[in-house]
């Protein structure tokens, strides 16, 4: 190309560049590109939500419900308002009450729609519907910010949303895939706590069993010690109320407990290995507050050592079918707990082990 023509092209390019800079046209083009990209991803989310909704609807139809769409619509718009936190007095009691009321209302909704199915199947439907509701909520929130950004020409809002989209898409994919495990009753990564509890029960001699508040308490003789093993009642999708049950048990035994151990799945940091076990102090439980504080208060009231064990995993691994590494980690953790108890307590002592998490696919 002759240099004069080349210079002309370069000059035209610079003129266009400066016009765009001074008129803000470059920002408008950038905004349009972001909004197109977000809209494409939003359509992907919509497709996933519709697919999952149809899957659950056909599952409910197979169970005898004629119009599952009505129940799904109601379940998806169901909400719980957080308690007032500017006045913290009683907040745990209020939060516990609201969480329990919310759980009961949601269960009643499914129960009334499917009165003839068993508890196990109903728990699977409940959790699957909750997952679809969560996905639907993500879809609505992303759509809200996209439309607001477009309406108000707010390029900062669109830029933030565009930068967050990869993370949102990963979460949506994770929830979308979790439907398979929860609708079929497969154990998930979060079931590692109840699985460890179950293996511990299997290792010893069961003296007694009772179920309180959807939570099982096993009294087990093992390694010359009295173990109380607490886990959500399985094998349905259930997290129980391990905190409240543990606190009541400690009171019932007048605090004559030598050690409390909580075992749970914990989200790993990027770079950490799945199935890694870590030991620490405190209550290993990922609830919003009421269950965790009940354990802490019970341990503090009677000055009982409170130890925590966690099995590390990523969010996708926590809510999707249990991976082999996590299963193997559960086997190792059982031996870890037995060794820990032998080291920290004398013979004939009483120990409480609480396996925290969703007990889907794990009986007892």
């Amino acid at each position, binding site marked *: *190309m002759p*240099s004069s023509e*080349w210079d002309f092209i370069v000059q035209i390019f610079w003129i266009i560049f400066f016009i765009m800079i001074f008129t803000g046209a470059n920002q408008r083009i950038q905004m349009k590109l972001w909004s197109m990209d977000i809209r494409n991803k939003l359509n992907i989310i919509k497709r996933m939500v519709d697919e999952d909704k149809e899957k659950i609807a056909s599952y409910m139809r197979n169970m005898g419900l004629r119009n599952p769409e009505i129940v799904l619509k109601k379940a998806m718009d169901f909400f719980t308002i957080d308690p007032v936190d500017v006045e913290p007095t009683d907040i745990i009691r209020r939060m516990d009450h609201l969480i329990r009321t919310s759980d009961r209302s949601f269960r009643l909704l499914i129960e009334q729609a499917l009165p003839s199915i068993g508890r196990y199947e109903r728990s699977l439907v409940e959790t699957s519907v909750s997952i679809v509701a969560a996905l639907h909520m993500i879809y609505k929130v992303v759509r809200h910010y996209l439309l607001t950004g477009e309406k108000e020409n707010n390029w900062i809002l669109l830029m933030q949303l565009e930068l967050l989209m990869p993370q949102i898409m990963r979460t949506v994919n994770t929830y979308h895939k979790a439907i398979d*495990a929860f*609708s*079929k*009753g*497969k*154990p998930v990564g979060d079931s590692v706590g109840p*699985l460890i509890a*179950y293996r511990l029960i*299997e290792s010893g001699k069961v003296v007694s069993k009772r179920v309180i508040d959807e939570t099982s308490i096993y009294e087990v003789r093992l390694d010359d010690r009295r173990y109380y093993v607490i886990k959500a009642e*399985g*094998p349905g999708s259930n997290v129980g109320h391990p905190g409240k049950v543990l606190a009541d048990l400690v009171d019932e035994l007048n605090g004559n407990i030598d050690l409390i151990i909580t075992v749970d799945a914990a989200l790993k940091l990027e770079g950490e290995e799945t199935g890694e076990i870590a030991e620490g102090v405190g209550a290993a439980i990922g609830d919003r507050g009421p269950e965790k504080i009940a354990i802490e208060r019970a341990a503090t009231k009677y000055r009982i050592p409170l130890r925590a064990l966690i099995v590390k995993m990523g969010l996708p691994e926590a809510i*999707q*079918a*249990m*991976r*082999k590494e996590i*299963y193997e980690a559960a086997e190792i953790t059982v031996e870890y707990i037995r060794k820990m108890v032998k080291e920290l307590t004398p013979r004939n002592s009483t120990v409480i082990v609480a396996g925290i998490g969703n007990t889907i*696919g*794990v*009986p*007892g």
Partner: protein
Amino acid sequence: MSLQLSQDMIYYLLIAIAVALTIYFLLETTTKPKEPETETKELLTCPKCGYSVEKTFEPGDFIGMIKGNVQNVEHHYESKQYTT
């Protein structure tokens, strides 16, 4: 004349490098790593004789579930393990 020619060559080379880099970065950002196919399996183990067999997961199965008898023996299979 020869200077003009070499200048043009540099321009063409720079344009070629810019185009190649653009294509490379576009491909780099658009190709996603393929997720590995997973399957949930269960290891059915007889607690008495230790005989075990791996099967594909069936909806409704759970860990510790008694699943039929071991061939020709009166022992039970117990579902033990899930892998994906």
